């Protein structure tokens, strides 16, 4: 069975930094190692415009502890930035232009900061479509600085929601039925509706934790399915921190959903669906 070589990932979010060495095969993800270090509240606040790393020393300490636990050393790591910092959009890209160039035309003029401050990259999709993401340069630089401060050797830098989406679209499921994927971040979440590998709707919302968030998330799933042209009982998958608890609570109230992915093998004490950034291993 074809399997990718293990690669090192380090993901940051409001509540914790986590990471590990991950390989991917058709049977699922294989976590060679995994660790998670909680962050003090307010040390890192994912946001699209303001600096995210509020208390760099505390974030750098957590990253150093993570690197020690995972024995990363000088190996280059892929940094994954949290949901809630980028402007995401699904575009149909003309044939004579790259998705990045087209995003600069369609998305960047609507951003509330100068065009030259936007760092843009894309998740290419089938049929000339792409998901584009624009992040403010100053926001990215804050993450890069704290990674460098902690001694991590940065390889590339990706966004967790895009990494997760690329992993989820590798297994699009039944081509006759709509699937809605929920990608949970600490500060924001993504909803992606697709059928037969074609992404029909993509939504990105801020989290609003509270006693009725489960119900509101379920309503957002239905809204997304409706936007995608099928409001009748889509297949629902969830990945990200808290996915297991959310699935259990939804099941308790009669909802039907499943983990977005599973580990191919017993995996270093972590439930694969809790780690949205695992999708980066298939990119």
């Amino acid at each position: 069975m074809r399997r990718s070589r293990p690669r090192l990932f380090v993901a940051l979010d409001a509540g914790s930094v986590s990471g590990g060495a991950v390989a991917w095969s058709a049977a699922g993800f294989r976590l060679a190692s995994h660790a998670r270090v909680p962050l003090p509240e307010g040390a890192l606040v994912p946001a699209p415009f303001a600096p995210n790393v509020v208390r760099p020393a505390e974030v750098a300490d957590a990253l150093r502890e993570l690197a020690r636990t995972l024995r990363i050393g000088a190996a280059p790591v892929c940094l994954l930035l949290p949901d809630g910092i980028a402007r995401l959009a699904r575009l149909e890209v003309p044939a004579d232009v790259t998705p990045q160039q087209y995003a600069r035309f369609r998305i960047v003029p609507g951003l509330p900061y100068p065009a030259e401050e936007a760092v843009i990259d894309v998740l290419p999709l089938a049929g000339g479509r792409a998901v584009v993401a624009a992040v403010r340069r100053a926001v990215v630089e804050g993450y890069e600085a704290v990674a460098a401060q902690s001694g991590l050797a940065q390889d590339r830098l990706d966004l967790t929601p895009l990494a997760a989406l690329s992993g989820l679209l590798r297994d699009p499921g039944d081509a006759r039925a709509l699937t809605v994927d929920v990608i949970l971040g600490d500060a924001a979440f993504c909803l992606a509706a697709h059928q037969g590998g074609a992404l029909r709707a993509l939504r990105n919302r801020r989290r609003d934790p509270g006693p009725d968030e489960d119900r509101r998330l379920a309503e957002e799933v239905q809204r997304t399915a409706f936007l995608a042209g099928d409001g009748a009982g889509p297949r629902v998958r969830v990945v990200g921190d808290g996915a297991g608890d959310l699935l259990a609570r939804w099941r308790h109230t009669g909802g039907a959903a499943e983990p977005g992915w599973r580990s191919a093998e017993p995996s270093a004490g972590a439930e694969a669906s809790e780690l949205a950034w695992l999708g980066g291993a298939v990119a």
Partner: protein
Amino acid sequence: MTERDFSTRPRRRAARPLDLALLAVGAAALLLSAYATVNAWNGRQRARARVEETRNELQAAQSRVRELEAQREPAQAVAYQALLTVEAPPPSVLADLVALMPGDVRLDAVNLSYGEPLGVRVDVVARNAPAYDLFLDRLQRSPRFADVLPGDENRDGELRTSIQMTYRPR
């Protein structure tokens, strides 16, 4: 396929022989296109002069029409304006306009003048000239819009221009 990378200082790799060959081909293409551009430029200048002449004539005719319209009874103009606001509210006009826009065209500004007729002026940005031409063509064929008058075009990279037209309520 290149992996996504949002780094502010993306990794760089050394140039390969293929890169250098492509660079040489690109330089040759640049020289060729420069020659073609000079030829096209001369033709364009002549065409622009003709367009300008026609535009001046059209503007003179429109000024005359406006003068005649201004002589109408004020009460009648107000009544017509009220009727238009009901029959063609801004969301409807905008929806009809957006329905004609190719993906490569976006609007930077829209100005609606509720008079008789309902005047629409849009500031348009098109990613390329064919997309703009397609938008103009759609506007001219649309039963909702009439008297489509394109403004001066700025073709410095993206095409920027404004278009004046009138709207026909349903």
